[in-house]
């Protein structure tokens, strides 16, 4: 299989094309939301939400089959967002509260799934997604859920950044901390909902965390972080899908698509981190060279 075939030709196959569309939308939205997650340090809350959504997926599947997964996840995500936001306000140590919610909801989900006939198959689909078998009828709902998250972040974006930078100042300026936290948590939850059906409820965390972290390594310009994270996520999704396709069709190695995409995300992060460390070392080298030249100058003067 040629490179061009893997990168472009593969997506002429309908199920690959659908997977690409859904993943690109998810990647761009998760990248943008992920910058706020990074700046607010909400990685653990996001992890809590991925677990909180799991029982919703399971109950949705039990009640309505595959078509029930998305509505079930949406209900669970909203409840989870409200619960975690409220916990964050009650003085319960946030980490402890999240950990309790995370494990409780996850065990509820596993119990529900265990009642189904195809325990292992259902669990695998919910945990690790089924990006290559998304039915055409589910593409639009997934896109709508993603766009809703983007709208929520666009509406509250500048106030979210203010709160991330200076929580006390944001409050003094009249912004409601609860309202802003709830808005951001719901946006994260919507990304989790869209991601749970595609890359799975566990791996979606990579979409929320890795692109934002990459953007922080690349730039210190606030408004550049968002396009950098979105472009990185989209590029990594595309390459990941293509790599998975090439491996299974070209080499006969059947890689799970969602995990392959996430592996490319992490690989991308490692590369960017490596380049950044090299650049920092190089910059330090130049500076110390300047210093030693200046030092010599002073001595001779």
């Amino acid at each position, binding site marked *: 299989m040629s490179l061009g075939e893997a990168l472009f030709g593969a997506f002429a196959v309908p199920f690959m094309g659908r997977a690409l569309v859904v993943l690109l939308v998810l990647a761009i939205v998760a990248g943008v939301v992920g910058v706020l997650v990074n700046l607010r340090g909400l990685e653990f809350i996001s992890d809590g939400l991925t677990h909180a959504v799991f029982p919703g997926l399971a109950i949705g599947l039990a009640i309505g089959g595959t078509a029930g997964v998305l509505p079930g996840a949406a209900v669970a995500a909203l409840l989870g967002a409200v619960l975690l936001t409220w916990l964050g306000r009650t003085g319960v140590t946030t980490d402890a509260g999240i950990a309790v919610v995370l494990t409780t909801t996850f065990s509820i989900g596993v119990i529900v799934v265990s009642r189904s006939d195809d325990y292992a198959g259902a669990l695998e689909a919910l945990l690790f997604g089924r990006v290559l078998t998304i039915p055409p009828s589910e593409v639009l709902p997934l896109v709508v859920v993603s766009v809703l998250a983007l709208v929520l972040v666009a509406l509250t974006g500048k106030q979210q950044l203010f709160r991330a930078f200076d929580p006390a100042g944001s409050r003094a*300026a009249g912004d409601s901390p609860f309202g802003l936290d709830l808005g951001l948590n719901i946006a994260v939850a919507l990304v989790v909902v869209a991601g749970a059906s595609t890359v799975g409820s566990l791996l979606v965390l990579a979409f929320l965390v890795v692109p934002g972290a990459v953007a922080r390594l690349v730039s210190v310009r606030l408004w550049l972080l968002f396009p950098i994270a979105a472009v990185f996520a989209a590029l990594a999704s595309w390459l990941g899908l293509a790599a998975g396709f090439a491996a299974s069709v070209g080499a006969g190695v059947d890689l799970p698509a969602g995990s392959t995409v996430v592996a490319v995300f992490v690989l991308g992060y490692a590369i960017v981190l490596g380049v950044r460390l090299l650049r920092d070392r190089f910059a330090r080298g130049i500076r110390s060279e300047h210093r030693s030249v200046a030092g010599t100058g002073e001595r001779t003067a």
Partner: protein
Amino acid sequence: MTENVVRLDDATFTYPGGSSVGGFDFAIGRGEAVALIGPNGAGKSTLLRGILGLVPLTHGRMSLGEPVGEASGPMADAAARPVTAKHSDRGMLGFLPQSMEFDLDFPISLEQVVMQGRYRRLGLLRWPGRADRAAVRHALETVGLEELAATRFGQLSGGQRQRGLLARALAAEPELLLLDEPFNGLDQPNRDALVATLRRLKRDGVAVLVSTHDLELAQQVCDLVLLVNGGQLSFGPVADVLTLGNVQRCFDGVEVEIDEHTLVVPGHEGH
């Protein structure tokens, strides 16, 4: 008679936890500056936060420009009549918090921090426009930092950051500027710049309420002094209020020396 920008009548502010400061009975007019003086823990920050609406008014009344708040809600006592404070009326306030702790790595420029001062006017839906950018530029010029507009906030010196936060408060184009210990830890050039800025603001008709331990500042910039310890002790012109007796009573038990420039209070930073 100057037009009052803020007026408190027998006002008490109470934290939900129960601690309160009360007996505030004063008014600040346009172009007037008031020095808020008292020992640590006397309630200076609570008063400022109360005016900002962050600590509930539980007794008496407070007006900003026109009446905006009487004590209301479950914490209010019987003497208070319920009237809802309109949030938008607080748009006229600028606030410089006490030395703020923040992440020096946060990717935000000075200009972007100053723009945050406009957000209360913009609300959720509107994004900054030409008028907002002009106000930000003007605020940066006022504090003398226009050259550093694009610099990352974390790369500025402590004094520059403090001036940047003052610019953020000014970008709100406030009628009342609240400053909490703005002179703590400032070196002489930054201190002089702040004094000059406050004088200019007064000339432009801005009312200023500044908490400080710096009597020299109180005399240089302020017309009035508000002595506080658990509540209002006295309020009036600098020369009348800032007497050794009054200050000693205010700092109760702490050894205080006062000469023409400095208030020496053991355990306090600055002058």
